[in-house]
């Protein structure tokens, strides 16, 4: 079977699960497209998954209420073995990329990280992924019949639901004890769409001048557009914004339909996190800023004047509703 580990949060399947499903459907490998749901009280999620897969395996267990890399790896490896999975597809989220290596080691299987495309080559699986801070596209081939793959978010289209619902099966798991003990949590508090799922990202660099400038320029424009907010490392290091908003090598990787960079010079580490965006817009007073080599639309000027003028323009001439996330 082709095993998809479904990501979900707050009772809903994540966008990544729809992308993994589309990836699995494109793959001509043997066996049913199977979605595995790990969690506690996940009935609603399992029902949603039944419209995507050819079968759904549900591990509804209080021990799975909070993610843990060792528990997730044990669960996925057990199901992969029992179901004789040939391909294990895992979302390229921070957690997915954290437990997938453990799954590969448990199964003595190759790991393809952050695939952007793949195809069959005889019995083997070939894939493309980015290397060198996303500057190089590398083609690799996994040796062996079982392969673990993480899929880069945004690389595959969102799968459409089937008209009929697949069968759901409860599974029993032997789970290890939790060793990483969580003693406190700081949740990303955002009422905006999530950074990695957003269709538009408005991001700010040191060029916005201050935390207040970030709020007035970046956040205001993001809210006007229904966009997510991103920040550069310099902004995060200065304590203006939380790490959760950082885009770049050491932060999140995004590839929205449009990335609007405000007061960002465009260090290579930042470009590696957003350089695959479909459209890149930059506003910066320095005409020589490296970001302008990567833009579709560049405005050389003062962000303090131009961004408020954009917001006014959008408010005064609203054509219709702003773009919203399409997955529900």
């Amino acid at each position, binding site marked *: 079977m082709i095993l998809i580990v479904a990501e979900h949060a707050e009772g809903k399947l994540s966008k990544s699960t729809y992308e993994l499903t589309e990836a699995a459907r494109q793959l001509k490998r043997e066996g049913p497209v199977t979605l595995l749901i790990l969690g506690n009280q996940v009935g609603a999620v399992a029902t949603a998954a039944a419209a995507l897969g050819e079968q759904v395996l549900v591990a509804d267990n209080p021990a799975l209420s909070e993610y843990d890399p060792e528990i997730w790896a044990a669960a996925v490896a057990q199901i992969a073995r029992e179901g004789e999975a040939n391909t294990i597809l895992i979302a390229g*989220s921070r957690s997915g990329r954290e437990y997938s*290596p453990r799954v590969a080691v448990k199964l003595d299987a190759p790991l393809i990280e952050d695939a952007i495309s793949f195809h069959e080559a005889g019995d083997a699986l070939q894939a493309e992924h980015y*290397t*060198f801070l996303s500057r190089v596209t590398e083609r690799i081939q996994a040796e062996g019949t079982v392969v673990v793959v993480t899929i880069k978010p945004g690389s595959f289209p969102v799968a459409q639901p089937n008209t009929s619902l697949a069968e759901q099966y409860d599974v029993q798991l032997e789970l290890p004890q939790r060793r990483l003990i969580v003693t406190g949590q700081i949740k990303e508090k955002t009422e905006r769409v999530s950074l990695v799922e957003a269709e538009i990202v408005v991001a700010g660099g040191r060029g916005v001048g201050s935390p207040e400038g970030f709020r007035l320029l970046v956040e205001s424009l993001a809210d006007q557009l229904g966009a997510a907010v991103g920040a550069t490392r310099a902004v995060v290091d200065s304590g203006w914004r939380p790490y959760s908003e950082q885009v770049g090598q050491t932060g999140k990787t995004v590839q929205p339909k449009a990335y609007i960079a405000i007061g960002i010079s465009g*260090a290579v*580490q930042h470009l590696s996190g957003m350089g695959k965006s479909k459209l890149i817009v930059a*506003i910066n007073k320095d005409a020589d800023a490296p970001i302008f080599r990567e833009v579709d639309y560049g405005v050389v000027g003062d962000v303090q004047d131009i961004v408020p003028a*954009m917001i006014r323009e959008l408010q005064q001439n609203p054509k219709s509703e702003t773009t919203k996330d399409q997955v529900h």
Partner: protein
Amino acid sequence: MRILAVIRQVLNAEESVKVKDGAVDLSSSKLVVDTMDEYGVEQALRMREATPGIEVAVLAIGPSRCEEAVRSALAMGADRGILVEADVPLDVITISSIVAQVARAETIGLIFCGGQQADWDSHALGAATAERLGWPQATWTHALSLDGDQLIGKHAVDAGSESFSLPLPAVVTTQQGLNEPRYPTLPNLMKAKRKEIRRESLDAFDVKPKLKYLGAEVQVRERLRTMIDGKDSQAAATQLVDLLRNQAKVIQ
């Protein structure tokens, strides 16, 4: 306790990437220790300074030139180096087997490696190594201290960050914010020349690569590069909004 910091020698981020015969060619490029790995070396040194009886070893797996990277880590203050010479590209699952074998032979109690390596963009080495050793892991760690036989720290997760405790032995992957890596001082550079670097051959480790490398291309995405003069901010804003609406059609 012995701490092992795993380091990789990577292209300096400011350099351009060259591809030759379907693979990245680093022969004429400036190479450095991966910044993410330097956080691990620095953290190990800080732990040694705070707790008596800690030894810090660094491990590099790669071509002979990686000795330079090991030497840099020794100049930061690491006690000794191990270089496993490998001239063929190895995938991360295979490399984790080498790291785990070294850790066992050296009776290591804590392993550091970078959260993401700047050459192969991999996040997997820490977790794969932990699995092989049967150890727990904490990834993307941005605060860490030793508390008896436990580690106390903070790390980034999907939806924000968490504080955690973790029993030793363990694998920790790093990220920015963990510390500011020190620069080698002149006396330390001199001392580093006399420190031991043990070279081992890949043949000493029984590994079989799991990935084949078929080719590589530098990806260049064609951009429109439409530039707008922002001297008249209102006119520039109007033009940009018009382009976003009517040409790119990303907003309505």
